[in-house]
């Protein structure tokens, strides 16, 4: 008799459906996003006008640097640069 029942294998296979593709891709992009974030923070520390743009319109500043304004990253930039919180949220 088999040590591994096929019914049990089927049950276990059912337990791990794929995560939504968008979630997986966003998590996979983290290293690239982090690099963009580091670039933004470094530029803001070196360039006063860019820092003003960040304060005025953070998402526009992200776009200028070619970085997707993911909410997690936006929050992190705010924290790292001690910017005021987003009043829209």
């Amino acid at each position, binding site marked *: *008799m*088999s*040590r*591994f*029942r*096929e019914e*049990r*294998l*089927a049950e*276990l*296979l*059912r*337990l*791990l*459906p*794929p*995560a*939504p593709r968008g*979630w*997986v891709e*966003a*998590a*996979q992009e*983290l*290293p*690239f996003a*982090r690099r963009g974030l580091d670039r933004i923070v470094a530029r803001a520390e070196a360039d006063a006008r860019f820092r003003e743009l960040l304060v005025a319109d953070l998402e526009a500043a992200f776009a200028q640097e070619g970085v997707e304004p993911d909410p*997690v990253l936006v929050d992190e930039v705010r924290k790292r640069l001690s910017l005021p919180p987003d009043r829209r949220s």
Partner: protein
Amino acid sequence: MLTDSELVARCRSGDPEAWRLLVERYSRYVYAITRSFSLREHDAEDVFQDVFARAYERLDTLRDADSLRPWLAQLTRRLCIDKLRAGSREQPGEEEPEGVEDRVEELTEALALREALETLAENCQEILDRFFARDESYRTIAEALDLPAGTIASRISRCLARLRQRLEETAGKPRLEDR
């Protein structure tokens, strides 16, 4: 296939491809753990992203690279509990729903089975994943893989038998034995 230890070492050296593989390897597992907490969809997504964001930031603090799987499981459970607490209108102190411990153990068993699945031919991996994990019908699978619908059931059965055979060949996975 890279071991977890090799994967972690590559991620630590800044290899983005290794990170992509790590997320791919554990995305189902992390997702399934969040589901066992019955979180709302957007809360589950927050936890999912947070797990990988924290793992990425703290990979250097992982003492034993072979313990990546339990480390991720623990991180996911902790963040799920935090999410439950944050959303609870009742007294703080929300703990894990009953049965999560057993569920995570079962998911770990399922993850080990997926590793065995990945050693099978691509067509078997695809057909078993579509039928069992993605819950696709025979017709959908037949259309997607350009196969006659009437052959799907027998192909699933054959692939399942191959998977069982592979497990028996490699043995040493007592948790998958008959209970």
